[in-house]
């Protein structure tokens, strides 16, 4: 039987992610989340243009890729840092979880997290977030989002092992600068992946990913 990795992390190969959002649906279904509460979200980043050439033909630099993001269980989690009650806490394996018995629903963690990982459940007046589907993982399973991914773009495992799958990690728009919170996750960049803070593209589905 598998057990929780020593330093668990998600991996996303943005080259093969099709943006189908099955991961979101699986997460909502597994965790029975309310409408509008999304522990995982898929961001579509798109841009580029068509440039006319003197002979009347066109060249193009159009690109579009998807980034499926949930909590990155950062090494320097700002949500843990700002939480007044210690409801948001990090264990020895680096997993950031929330103790709802202590949460006051001030939403300060949500303001601070650059990934919008902590989500507000208005029905309960509390925050909630991804916990790697700890119950599944303890019984030898994988997180629901990873298990459901039809293209196997998403993976879950030991952080150090996942790092070997990508020459560089995380340095891609529209993700924030990793120096802010030191996320413990690996994003294999898309071949058209734009540099951090790139203004060449934009999030194409802002309404879809905005907070409830």
């Amino acid at each position: 039987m598998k057990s929780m990795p020593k330093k668990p992390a998600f991996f996303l190969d943005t080259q093969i992610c099709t943006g189908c959002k099955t991961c979101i649906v699986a997460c909502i279904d597994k965790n029975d989340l309310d409408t509008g509460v999304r522990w995982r979200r898929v961001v579509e980043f798109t841009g580029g243009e068509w440039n006319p050439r003197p002979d009347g033909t066109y060249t193009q630099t159009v690109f579009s890729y998807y980034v499926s993001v949930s909590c990155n269980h950062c090494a320097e989690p700002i949500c843990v840092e700002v939480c007044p009650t210690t409801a948001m806490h990090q264990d020895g394996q680096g997993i950031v979880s929330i103790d709802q018995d202590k949460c006051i629903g001030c939403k300060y963690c949500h303001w601070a997290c650059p990934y919008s990982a902590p989500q507000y459940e208005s029905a309960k007046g509390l925050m909630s977030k991804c916990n790697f589907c700890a119950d599944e993982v303890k019984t030898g399973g994988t997180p629901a989002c990873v298990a459901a991914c039809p293209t196997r773009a998403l993976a879950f495992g030991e952080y150090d092992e996942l790092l070997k799958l990508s020459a560089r990690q995380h340095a891609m728009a529209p993700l924030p600068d990793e120096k802010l919170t030191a996320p413990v996750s690996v994003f294999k960049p898309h071949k058209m992946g734009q540099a951090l803070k790139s203004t060449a593209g934009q999030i194409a589905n802002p309404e879809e990913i905005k907070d409830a």
Partner: protein
Amino acid sequence: MRDHGSLVLFTLSVQTAVGGVWCLQFASFGGVHIWERPDFRYQLGLILFLSIVGLGGAFLHLGNPLNSYHVFKNLKQSWLSREIALVGAFGGMVIIMIGVTQTQGGLLHDGILLLGSLTGGMAVVAMTRVYRLRTVPSWNHAGTPLAFLGSTLLLGGLLCTVPLHLQTWPTLTNPGVLAHDNYLKVIWFACAIAGLACKFLVAGIHSRTSADSQTSPVHQPVYQAGGLAAWMIYILINGNPGWQSLLLILTACGLISGETIHRIQFYQSYRRVGL
């Protein structure tokens, strides 16, 4: 950031209360025996009322206030935890101040007032630090502490002037009382001017750092300039009490409207990096 009404209430109420204590402290530094003044208790009462209103606003903001007894558990790391602790301590200091007004104090009174001013100052510092998040560049700049300091001085001066006016209404014909009260009015007006100077600096920083706001940026300076003009006329014209009251009402309306708009704009300017 759609539910920021309660936070506007919390921050403005507490900053006004702290500003009120600071203004009393400045008057004390200026040689005024404020503990012996009849309006002092009114001022402290208003300050306590605003502190309670502020804390009530903070409670309204919470999704689950029943768990709020946990809020002091992260004093080591969280500025929000420190802010709540310091605002609570400030409220406690105001209660002590009200309690000791009945006693003969002298040095003890001055010490308690100073301690209250310092606790309030630390509460405002903690309040500014809450918004200095490294992931929120639209707040993480010098404009945030300046704006909060400006509001504290501006509204504090106003808060102290209102009970002074109410208390001295019947004695306006006494030249001795008038001269003394005018001195206080000038001290507190100077606090407000210092607050407004902070606000001007904020306007410069704000225009460089962001932010598209849904509220017209023109309204706030217009209200505040109108409020200050009315205040200046109130000081200069020591005549009909009715006119003076009207001027003070205009001052309060202008300044409070301006500050409220500015604070709403502050919350609307929230822009986080990332997703």
